[in-house]
């Protein structure tokens, strides 16, 4: 057995008086791709955003329970959110490059975290991050152009490059392909497969084919509860729970 990277235990989330997540417990292994699937509004994005404390941005959102990252509790007043987030990169549903140049987009993280001492070093990080995100060859001649001038798929890869530039250990992806065409989606999926070697990846997706293609583990959420979790192969071929069975065969959702 490989090590637990993230260990969630009894996570409840409330938006105001409405409970969105009910006692989620989950064990996420290192250097694997875990897919969170389920119908809209089932709480999979909410859970994802608990892991890097993104829910802090929502005033009425209350999180309780325990999530441990590398055996360190993160649902706590004392957690250093900044260092947590530098360890956990995030890629969002809609590509959201800053209105800055391609170079500055990737350089943003390393600069604010003081990871580099010289311009050369920064350039090196930017180039290697773009290479890891499979974007370098396409943009190497126009690093000074605005990031927003790229196509949707390229923008999303730019956002991935931006996330991995601070050398995170975990990457959270919140439906990273839902705004992209099939070709761009295929490229990103290939990329996820490569990134798995170095990063622990959690991906929320609406596409069951995508979950089946890219993930090793799959977790099925329904109405704020974690119904079933297991090897992707098993979930998609022989699930234990009838709800899971119904969902993956398209009977609801």
């Amino acid at each position, binding site marked *: 057995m490989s090590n637990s990277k993230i260990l969630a235990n009894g996570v409840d989330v409330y938006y105001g008086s409405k409970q969105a997540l009910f006692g989620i417990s989950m064990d996420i292994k290192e250097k694997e791709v875990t897919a969170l699937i389920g119908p809209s509004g089932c709480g999979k994005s909410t859970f994802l955003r608990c892991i890097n404390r993104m829910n802090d941005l929502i005033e009425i959102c209350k999180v309780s329970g325990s999530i441990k990252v590398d055996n360190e509790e993160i649902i706590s007043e004392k957690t250093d959110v900044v260092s947590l*987030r*530098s360890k956990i990169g995030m890629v*969002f549903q809609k590509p959201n490059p*800053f209105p800055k140049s391609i170079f500055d987009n990737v350089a*943003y*993280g390393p600069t*604010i975290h003081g990871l580099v001492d010289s311009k050369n070093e920064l350039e090196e990080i930017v180039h290697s991050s773009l290479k890891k995100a499979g974007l370098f060859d396409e943009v190497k001649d126009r690093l000074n152009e605005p990031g927003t001038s790229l196509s949707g798929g390229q923008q999303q890869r730019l956002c991935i490059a931006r*996330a991995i530039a601070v050398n995170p250990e975990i990457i959270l992806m919140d439906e990273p392909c839902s705004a992209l065409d099939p070709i761009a989606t295929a490229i990103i999926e290939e990329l996820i497969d490569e990134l798995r070697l170095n990063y622990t990846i959690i991906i929320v997706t609406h596409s069951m084919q995508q979950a089946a293609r890219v993930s090793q583990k799959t977790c099925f959420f329904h109405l704020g509860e974690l119904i079933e979790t297991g090897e992707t192969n098993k979930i998609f071929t022989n699930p234990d729970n009838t709800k899971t069975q119904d969902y993956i065969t398209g009977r609801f959702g």
Partner: protein
Amino acid sequence: MFFWSLVLIAVGIFSSFIYGRSRIKLNSKKQGTKSKSLPNYYAQYVLMWCLFPALIVYFSWAIFQEQIIQNIVISNFEFIEGAVYNEGLLLAEIRNVSNNPSFADGKSIEIINAASHYSSLRQISQISFYTSIIIIMLLGALYASQKLKPEFHAQHTIEKYIQYILIFCSSVAIFTTIGIVFSLIFESLRFFAEVSIFEFLFSTEWYPFIPIREGQTAAEGSFGAVPIFAGTFLVMVVAMCVAVPLGLLTAIYLAEYASQRVRKIVKPLLEILAGIPTIVYGFFAFVSVAPFVKAFGQSIGIDASPTSALAAGMVMGVMIIPFISSLSDDVINSVPQSLREASLGIGANKAETIKKVILPAALPGIVGAFLLAISRAIGETMIVVVAAGTAPNLTGNPFENVTTVTVQIVVALIGDQEFDNPRTLSAFALGLVLFVITLFLNIIALQIVKRYRERYE
């Protein structure tokens, strides 16, 4: 007279409405078909054909009646050979006598004759006014009633008319603006006929006094507006020094840090600041701030005058805080949430996110807000009239008395003066300069704001 005619028109359009409604119902019943539009549209159609011609008659009478009557009276007046007449005074006298016959005592026979002529003309005018209103309304209704057939698309026509009405209303504002601009330009040209434009724009002596009586030994006036522009600029700079940091930081607090509840209370409160009449700010500047500035100046060894650029500028700065904070708050808010999440998701803290992502993204809009605030500041009048003084000093020292374009316009127009000398005409030249500057600032600002909006919406 004009009140009763309004009543007449009201009665006319009311009955035309009723008439149109019942007529179309009758017509469609007769033909046994349903009318293409609802009966009300036909009624409105008749109403409009009654109302608008009547309004045209009404307004042309209101505008031209007096002028025409006066011209007829004057042209029939029996002028006595050799006597000198002032036309305006003569007309006033004739009107007085005609309105109030007891004034006739002691007036010359020509005037009494003219007065009775004037009265009779007015009566004729009044009778023909009512008659023509009634006739034009009847004609309008007659024309419209011929169209009252079930197959006539009254609704389409009404919609077209409504569009014309809307176009007319919006063009009123535009034509008023154009009219003001042209009057500014032409009066300024009269000014520049007497004072060279180079003197006005580049000379540093502002001494707009001219001899009132002939032979008076006052010096020639000089009209170099540089000290005035400099004063305006100085006050504006002081105001922006106050308003930019306060307004921008307020906006950042409201948009990024304040909770929804605080925001809901604070934002309207700030906007109330913008609603305070500027003369009230003027008092405040003169009574509270100016003495404080003077005392402060003395305490650091600068001789400050009782009214100063600093006092006026500071209060003006407070006045324009809400412009900057409210507009900047809007642009900061319209920076997409996804950019905040992206930055925070990488592990940036709030300050870094604001400084490096949100402000750069919102910058064009914020600059637009600054420019609008500047144009507001240089057009502001009452605060500077009360608190900046009227002395055209060419100085960079904010503790001194300065004067601004708007103050000089006020000064030039105070008192009973005809618009025939450079002193009063200078108001138009100054107004033109002010207008051109604020116009350009507004255009640039709106362009910037617009371009920014296009990018994110």
